[in-house]
């Protein structure tokens, strides 16, 4: 960023930017930075940096995990997607929240008991294989970068929204998308490199409460002014004879829908725009007289398949996100890990009731957002909706807009910092500390942590600049699909099946993860090829793929939502290859399983580590 830009920015601030919105967002950023600096003084040891000294209490940890988990996708993306796709998009918030149940039932307790620093640590410890650590590290970085892109888009969109009215010296309006990405990325990178895990635990815990407040308060005010959630859903016709909108719903204020908006019945019923997109594209490619018959035959079955695949991706993906898993290591013991998960589910469940309400009310009151694309589309409904109140009630509305903006800031900042810590941990602890220089001193490792944070922050910022035209929630869904096909099978099987070998685990995880990655990349590239701007030119080579998708809608669905075949594939490969290589099951597998499953009170873990250290010589 050049200096003239800053000067013009400050000049522009005086006119065009809502002081409340700017004020609240600014305070959130400053508080985040201040807390980072403050905790930097108390973060001294490597353990502080990587796992916050393993001493985070259940309440703090649950708030911090929730704060980390509720990303830009949850705060802005879910509302935007419910607005654009209706009922089908509700699966996102529900599965985001309920995926934790799987984590709680099968993974949380045992994983914490094993006593590692990072997931790659667990991978190596469970299979006694340094090679497997390397594979696991690659996947931490892969999934992490995939997940940072939508956070960066959230940052770019929000800043562009706040500064939409400033005028530059050359006469253009608004802030370019990339400025927000760079600015927010830099702030968080600084924070993480200062305080590590211990530093961000406190920040993220506070940010959860900022987000919960910022999403719920405007909803309550909006509902008291414009009518209850149910009435806004009820304003949509279901298209079933005899089930018309309730009479009360007629009193709801409703602006006429624009041409691009999906029709009522299609929007409010299951199997709507989101899950039928591929079939509709295929039907559009057919001669007009065959379309209706084709749709009648294929639309609903394919849509059901899409729904199930999405559910599998989100539920299993939650249980396999490295930046969430790494947080379980900050619990004092396995019971605390389970209690924490329970509280996380309550905290995020309460949160996730609200974003769809924005989407539903937005459909009735701000249908003009349907016409926007990129950072001007439905993704910004959470930020835009409170401005309606500003027109009606003046300053009160501005304050509410300010609060939602602050919430959005908290959302992408906390998730990005969590991702940065887990990826930095992988690079500094696993790559530097274990592979490159195993003999390095703790002080050197802390410097490595800081350097890695800067490197990864820079890469994430660069990637974030390229994704302006992809939907936030969609990108997150794909990160989940990759995690679901790689980490979830790995963790689930290695915790519960003692016959698992390193080769089986690696084959399953790599095949599942890479298949999901390729499928996601193909869908994304073909979508980017449709873009009219510079992105379209870069990915123009993938344009013919769209013709192929139109011919084979089933393949398009399986590429867009690959979990339904990649997760079983990964699990099956793990079983088959492990059976074939049964001779290489680690010799002390019984002890390992005991450490994973026996309560800490039996004192087995300590014994295991002593034995292990004596045997391994480190």
């Amino acid at each position, binding site marked *: 960023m050049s200096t003239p830009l800053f000067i013009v920015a400050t000049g522009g601030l005086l006119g065009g930017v809502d002081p409340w919105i700017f004020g609240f967002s600014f305070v959130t950023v400053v508080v985040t930075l201040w807390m980072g600096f403050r905790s930097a003084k108390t973060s001294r040891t490597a353990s502080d940096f990587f796992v916050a000294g393993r001493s985070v209490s259940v309440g703090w940890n649950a708030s911090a995990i929730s704060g980390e988990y509720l990303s830009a996708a949850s705060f802005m993306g879910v509302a935007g997607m419910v607005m654009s796709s209706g009922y089908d998009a509700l699966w996102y918030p529900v599965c985001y929240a309920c995926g934790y149940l799987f984590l709680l039932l099968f993974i949380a307790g045992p994983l914490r008991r094993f006593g590692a620093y990072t997931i790659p640590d667990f991978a190596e410890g469970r299979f006694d294989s340094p090679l497997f650590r390397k594979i696991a590290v690659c996947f931490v970085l892969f999934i992490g970068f995939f997940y940072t892109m939508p956070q960066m888009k959230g940052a770019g969109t929000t800043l562009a929204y706040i500064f939409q009215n400033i005028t530059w010296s050359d006469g253009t309006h608004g802030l370019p998308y990339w400025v927000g990405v760079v600015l927010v990325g830099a702030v968080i990178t600084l924070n993480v490199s200062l305080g590590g895990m211990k530093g961000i635990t406190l920040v993220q815990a506070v940010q959860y409460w900022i987000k919960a407040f910022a999403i719920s308060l405007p909803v309550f005010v909006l509902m008291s002014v414009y009518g209850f959630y*149910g009435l806004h*859903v*009820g304003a949509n016709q279901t298209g079933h004879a005899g*089930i018309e909108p309730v009479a009360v719903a007629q009193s709801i204020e409703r602006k006429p829908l624009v041409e691009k908006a999906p029709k009522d019945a299609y929007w409010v019923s299951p199997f709507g725009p989101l899950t039928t997109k591929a079939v509709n594209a295929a039907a559009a490619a057919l001669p007009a007289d065959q379309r209706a018959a084709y749709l009648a035959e294929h639309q609903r079955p394919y849509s059901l398949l899409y729904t199930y695949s999405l559910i599998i991706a989100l539920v299993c993906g939650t249980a396999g996100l490295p930046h969430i898993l790494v947080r379980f290591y900050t619990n004092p013991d396995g019971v605390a890990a389970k209690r924490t998960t329970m509280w996380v589910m309550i905290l995020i469940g309460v949160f996730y*009731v609200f974003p769809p309400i924005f989407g539903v009310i937005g459909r009735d009151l701000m249908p003009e957002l349907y016409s926007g694309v990129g950072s001007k589309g439905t993704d910004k409904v959470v930020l835009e909706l409170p401005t309606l109140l500003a027109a009606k009630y003046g300053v009160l509305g501005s304050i509410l807009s300010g609060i939602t903006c602050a919430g959005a800031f908290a959302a992408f900042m906390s998730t990005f910092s969590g991702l940065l810590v887990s990826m930095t941990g992988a690079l500094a602890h696993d790559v530097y500390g274990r592979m490159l220089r195993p003999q390095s001193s703790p002080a050197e490792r802390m410097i490595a942590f800081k350097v890695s944070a800067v490197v990864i922050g820079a890469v994430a910022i660069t990637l974030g600049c390229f994704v302006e035209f992809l939907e936030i929630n969609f990108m997150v869904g794909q990160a989940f699909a990759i995690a679901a096909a790689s980490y979830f099978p790995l963790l689930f099987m290695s915790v519960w099946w003692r016959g698992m070998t390193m080769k089986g685990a690696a084959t399953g995880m790599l095949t599942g993860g890479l298949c999901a990655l390729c499928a996601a990349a193909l869908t994304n590239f073909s979508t980017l090829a449709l873009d009219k701007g510079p992105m379209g030119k870069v990915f123009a080579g993938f344009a013919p793929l769209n013709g192929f998708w139109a011919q084979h809608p089933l393949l398009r669905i399986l590429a867009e939502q690959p979990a339904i075949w990649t997760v079983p594939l990964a699990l099956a490969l793990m079983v088959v290859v492990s059976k074939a290589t049964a001779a290489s099951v680690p010799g002390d597998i019984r002890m390992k399983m005991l450490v994973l*499953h026996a309560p800490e009170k039996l*004192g087995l873990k300590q014994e295991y580590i002593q034995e292990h250290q004596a045997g391994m010589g480190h």
Partner: protein
Amino acid sequence: MPPTPPPHDAVHSEEFLHALMRRQLKLSIACALAFLVVLLGLPLANYFAPELMATRIFGFTLTWLVLGVLFFPAVWAISWIFIRRSIWLEEDEVRQVNNERKGN
């Protein structure tokens, strides 16, 4: 920290590990099944009984009310039951082992 058990301790027997893992896995699977019936059943209900699922309740359609609102408390209930049972299981295991150690 409790004293390190001697290697011939019952804890290290194959039976103990089996019993330990089976009890906990049984509990987890029971809870997971309860969850999956609801999670995977809802799309099926939408598919086979669209009229019923479109019934209006407080303005919501039935399926919207279930997915958008009621799903969350249901999951909390499952996880609450799981936590209580699983902590009880752990305590029970510790009790058993300690009794056996005293017996030796």
